[in-house]
């Protein structure tokens, strides 16, 4: 009997002890985006290593696919349960500032960490205040089959010329990859538009965004060219409106595409999957007579005002931004490093990273306006209408511009 009482008492004490230690731990939640190339193990290992280093903190990394990240974050916020930290596309920051939910992250960062970030990448600095700590930043690239073409095309006109030669739909080989199904952002359109000296809005002298300009000469010219690739020259994969960006990537990796534009993460995937064909990267092409310009995408980490564990969240940032963890992260996601301490690391001295870095000066980012998600969808829908032959490029871009200006009250 005594023995039984002893065993029960020990179990009760253990349970009580565990409960007390669990209660004493402070919980930090991080909404984490699943980058292409980033394995699930990375987040698990990071969580485990951090908790070992800081046993008083219970870290909860909530992994989310990128294309669901925005909606999931908004659902958390609208439900009054924002995470403590979240990885976001920097273009969402104005929306979050509009909702008054983000904290100036600069108040919670150690000096060492702030000084180790390249200032040129601080797109999350609004009105002189840093709200978003850069987590990834990189320009986009042209991937091409170097076993099929002698050199990378510099212009889209050259690319079309090469595409007509290598396109072989009977063998399920398509010269140019084009996506038509919504997937986070309309990246494909941006690659062509920026290469034609176009942009989505006119920039006003005070730095704000004016009327929508997708229906100017550059915008209509871009849409006409894209539509011609799909419907006139038929050098893209058929049924472009069924393909998301990630499905195009799969198609390139499977060896079914000649040219495909994407981020550095595709290079990581090509290496991870050990493709047998020869491929290479080059700067994003531009139209003849127009300057080269790539899309630059930055992602940031934000801290939420409602967080009760800002200090603990700050400790996590220090941990995550240490060289060992950042190096592995940067390698996997295929972006150049955002920390100065890794800039000279031998791993990043290869053509993929060099091209990404070389393109930075002429590159353009997404518009920073709170209504961008809706504007993005409106442009997408009109691009699709053009691909389906429901509208001419001019009609489609005029309709898009008009609807966007109406929404923004212009």
């Amino acid at each position, binding site marked *: 009997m005594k023995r039984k009482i002893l065993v029960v008492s020990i179990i009760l004490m253990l349970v009580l002890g565990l409960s007390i230690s669990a209660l004493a731990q402070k919980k930090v939640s991080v909404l984490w985006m699943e980058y292409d190339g980033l394995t699930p193990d990375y987040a698990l290992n990071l969580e485990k290593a951090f908790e070992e280093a800081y046993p008083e903190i219970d870290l909860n990394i909530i992994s989310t696919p990128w294309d669901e990240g925005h909606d999931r974050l908004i659902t958390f916020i609208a439900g009054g349960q924002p995470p403590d930290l979240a990885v976001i596309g920097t273009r969402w920051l104005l929306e979050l500032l509009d909702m008054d939910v983000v904290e100036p992250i600069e108040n919670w960062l150690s000096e060492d960490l702030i000084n180790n970030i390249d200032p040129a990448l601080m797109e999350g600095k609004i009105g002189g205040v840093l709200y978003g700590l850069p987590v990834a930043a990189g320009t986009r690239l042209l991937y091409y089959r170097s076993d099929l073409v002698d050199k990378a095309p510099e212009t889209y006109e050259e690319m079309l010329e090469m595409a007509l030669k290598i396109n072989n739909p009977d063998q399920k080989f398509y010269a140019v990859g084009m996506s038509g199904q919504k997937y986070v952002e309309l990246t494909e359109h941006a690659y062509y538009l920026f290469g034609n000296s176009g942009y989505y809005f006119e920039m006003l002298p005070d730095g704000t965004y004016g009327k929508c300009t997708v229906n100017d000469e550059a915008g209509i010219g871009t849409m006409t060219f894209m539509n011609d690739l799909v419907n006139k020259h038929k050098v893209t994969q058929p049924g472009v*409106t*069924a393909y998301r960006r990630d499905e195009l990537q799969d198609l390139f990796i*499977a060896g079914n595409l000649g040219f495909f534009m994407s981020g550095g993460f595709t290079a990581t995937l090509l290496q991870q999957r050990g493709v047998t064909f020869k491929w290479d990267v080059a700067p994003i092409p531009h139209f003849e007579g127009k300057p080269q310009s790539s899309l630059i995408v930055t992602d940031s980490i934000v801290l939420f005002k409602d967080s009760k564990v800002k200090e603990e969240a700050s400790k996590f940032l220090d941990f995550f931004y240490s060289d060992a963890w950042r190096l592995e992260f940067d390698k996997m996601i295929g972006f150049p490093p955002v920390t100065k301490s890794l800039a000279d690391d031998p791993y990043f001295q290869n053509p993929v990273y060099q091209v990404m870095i070389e393109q930075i000066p002429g590159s353009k980012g997404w518009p920073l306006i709170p209504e961008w998600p809706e504007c993005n*969808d409106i442009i997408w829908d009109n691009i699709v*209408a053009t691909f389906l032959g429901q509208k001419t490029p001019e009609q489609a871009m005029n309709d898009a511009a008009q609807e966007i200006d109406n929404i923004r009250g212009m």
Partner: protein
Amino acid sequence: MARSGKFWKTESTFAYLLLLPALIFLIVFMFYPIVYVFFMSFFKVNKLAELVSFSGLDNYRYMFSKPEFWQIIVRSCMWTALAVAAKTVIGLIIALLLNVDFRGRKIVRTLTIIPWASSVPISAMIWQWTYNNDFGLLNYTLQSLGIMSNPPIWLAYPRSAFFACLWVDIWCGIPFMALVFLAGLQAIPQELYEAAEVDGAGSLAKFRSVTLPLLSGVLTIATLLSILWTFNDFNVIYILTTGGPGTSTDILITYIYKYAFQYLRFGPAAAMAVITFIILLTVSIIYARNYFRRGEIL
């Protein structure tokens, strides 16, 4: 009885007490959100879904002024009508077959429930891969068997994408209908069929005069539930096409989601939710009236 007093003595009061937790649950998780959405639809709402100022019918006017919104209402009704009709007919045929005594019937009944037992998002994702033009099983099978040399790219064009989504919804919904109908069929007394046979009724006559009338109650309830679920079926469309190409497969529920959680325009989203509620409430009332009227007649 340790406790005394009138309150505990009447059975109905005690029953109300037992119902109280469920009632509180309903008020908090059902009535409050519904009432709040009603309010939102008449207010200007900020990006945190908080009411800012009364705006009357502005949210409704905004939605009604969009031609796309009317197309989506029509599409939602068509989607529901076609899917429920197909699920009912196929479900009834399967139920009739499963009601016949044959060897292996139990196994077939178990297999029938699989699409219903698996989660809808997982089923939709599997179908998305199945429809894939380059690596999908469907087109590969069609080509390999020589049924189609050049099969369509199912999710690329508005009409084929709509029917591809519709089929997945039907596929997911058939087992429920079949099992409910089967339960209804098994409740029909065998003597009625024997009496009909004595009167010289053939299979079709027995189905028309015995099975259908006695199954009508089950049919009404099952189709009503199916209408409510199908009209609000978000998963299939969102996973397969996200409403595309363009907005050609959007139905009201996916459109509401876009407005609320992608554009953060909770006012127009709430107006659409109220319209959805009114449509479904009207259908439910008509069904309920028919059901109870038939009950009185029987």
